[in-house]
């Protein structure tokens, strides 16, 4: 009597067990650019704030001196169509393309004066996911470059090289609370649902827009 030959499954059990692991490793070994060239290049990781609430936000980031963080609180008010932007020359008329409108975004901030908020970006997002990015030069009026900071009192600037400091420039001390009102151009008829704030992708803060009642 001869011994029965083991089944195909039994003979190949270790190969079958290792197959999913090998498949994951094979895909992973070819996915080294996914993070740098795709994931990190867009807004992916949201902190969501409810409409009309004072929302706290903290994120870690790297500057020339190493790892640090920024923390602040912010509330967004009702967006309102506007035809002018206050500037050093007085109220200047907004120039928008045909079929577009300019929306003012009232923001109220609170932050310790040592927090660096330099370099922030802002966008409006509509209910279909389209993103309208704040551009300080687009509306025909030169707006303040950073939509989250008072232009004259921005607070600490980021250090640019090793040995530099996170110091505040003379006369640039930022108050603990302040307001901004950046203007963003969007097509007419768009329903804006969220205000997005970010420094470096993929992290961002998404504030629900309050609706007038």
């Amino acid at each position: 009597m001869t011994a029965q030959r083991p089944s195909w499954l039994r003979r190949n059990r270790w190969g079958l067990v290792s197959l999913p692991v090998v498949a994951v490793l094979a895909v992973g070994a070819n996915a080294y650019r996914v993070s740098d060239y795709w994931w990190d290049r867009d807004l992916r990781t949201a902190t969501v704030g409810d409409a009309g609430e004072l929302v706290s936000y903290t994120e870690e980031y790297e500057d020339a001196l190493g790892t640090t963080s920024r923390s602040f609180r912010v509330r967004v008010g009702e967006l309102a169509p506007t035809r002018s932007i206050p500037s050093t020359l007085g109220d200047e008329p907004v120039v928008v393309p045909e079929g577009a409108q300019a929306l003012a975004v009232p923001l109220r901030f609170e932050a310790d004066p040592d927090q660096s908020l330099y370099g922030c970006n802002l966008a409006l997002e509509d209910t279909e996911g389209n993103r309208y990015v704040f551009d300080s030069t687009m509306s025909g009026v030169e707006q303040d470059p950073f939509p989250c900071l008072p232009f004259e009192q921005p607070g600490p600037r980021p250090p640019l090289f090793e040995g530099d400091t996170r110091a505040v420039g003379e006369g640039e001390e930022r108050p603990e609370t302040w307001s901004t009102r950046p203007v963003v151009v969007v097509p007419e008829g768009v329903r804006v649902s969220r205000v997005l704030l970010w420094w470096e992708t993929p992290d961002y803060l998404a504030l629900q827009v309050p609706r007038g009642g």
Partner: protein
Amino acid sequence: MPRWLTRTGVGVLVVAALAAGRAITDTMPLTPDGARMAAAPFVRDGEVGEPLDLRWAEVEVTGVHEAEAIDDGSTLVGTAGVFVVVDLRVVARGEPRYLGGLHLVDREGRRFDRDTRTGFTYTEAPTGVDWFVSVAFEVPRDALPGLVLEVAQGEDPWWDNRRDELAHVDLGIARADVRRFVATKDIIGRFDAGPTPRDTEPTGQLEP
């Protein structure tokens, strides 16, 4: 069937499958730019005045003009060839779009970059609204007939156009138009991209 024969047969089949895959990839036709078809962009062809729907924007060439010089705001920029100034209307989809890949391509496949000496600037087209962009190219006279404008989001090494959509717009320059292009004395003023279109009237004439 002997076991060794089965194993050898399976091995031969696997190698044959791999070889067939490679052969198919390698024998796929090339695009005119030399890229493999499997990675080639999707090209939408059009002509002047025809809005083209791309994945990332609506693009329309609204006009083509010739000039012998460009007024960059302080001096006149000249050419031994001809300046071709192309006016575009762009409506960005989804998010602001930067037209980093604007080229003219002639019938021989020669590609011409925009002429940065002319001072024409273009910023990101904002989402969802008409944005007017003009761009000036300096081309040799023999390149004029059949010129095509290629509109892409960007170009290597800053942008990857593989599998992306881009537009090829025939500028409608026939051999009969070459004489007019070459004889022009028009001066065109520099233009910054913005919400209003460029005034297409020449800003002046060079002395004969």
